């Protein structure tokens, strides 16, 4: 699954940064019929977890009410230089992962 993560390359310790992720996914509601009138089964990214240096800082449990190609933006307090790891899973069992590094300077 294609995704784009936006994390500032650098921040000061204690600064609250905005983290953003966009994932290419149809987020099928389960209500939409295909060209033959058959219902396309529901398939949405149901869980996304963001870890910052191994600590879970954000979790999203999503349903079919989230728009296609989901976009999530949330704040995180910069503590130490390291890595943000995003992991997600959809209803069909497909998993995705994305990473972004950050350099944190003192005060």
């Amino acid at each position, binding site marked *: 699954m294609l995704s784009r993560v936006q994390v500032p390359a650098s921040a000061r310790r204690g600064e609250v940064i905005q983290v953003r992720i966009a994932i290419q996914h149809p987020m099928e509601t389960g209500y939409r019929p295909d060209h033959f009138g058959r219902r396309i089964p529901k398939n949405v990214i149901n869980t996304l977890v963001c870890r910052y240096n191994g600590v879970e800082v954000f979790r999203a449990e999503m349903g079919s009410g989230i*728009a296609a190609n989901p976009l999530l933006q949330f704040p995180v*307090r910069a503590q130490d230089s390291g890595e943000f790891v995003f992991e997600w899973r959809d209803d069909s069992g497909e998993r995705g992962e994305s990473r972004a590094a950050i350099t944190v300077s003192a005060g």
Partner: protein
Amino acid sequence: MSDRRRFLLTTTALAGGLLCARVAAAQAHPGRAELLREVTGGAAVQTGRVTVDTPPLADNGHSVAVRVLVDSPMSAQDHVRRITLLAERNPRPVVASFTLGPHSGKAEVATRIRLADIQDVLALAQMSDGSWWMGGAHVVVTELACLEG
């Protein structure tokens, strides 16, 4: 007028007024109480502290930008644990739940949602002390996220 007659008149008027108010409240938001109970597990919900930022008029119900802000210091002792987004008139009213914590620094989350009708978008926030707070915004959608196609 006798005291008895006055008493009867005022009490019936009061009772009627109360009944009307209750019926009106129930009709304005049918099913809201049950939906809130489903999310909070029956805990009391207070109004305030939660701001839902949406465009008042959305062109396209397939993708409506929503930002939820909660008034909280986000410290280890006092922070927002969870934010649940609700769209009552969607076929599945629970849109998403977000877990935050003191690492967040600020109590805020932004995403894009589908809206199947003109409706109130509600956000419920559970604080670290277990209390629930609610805020909402009315969104008028010109092109609804229809169920088919």
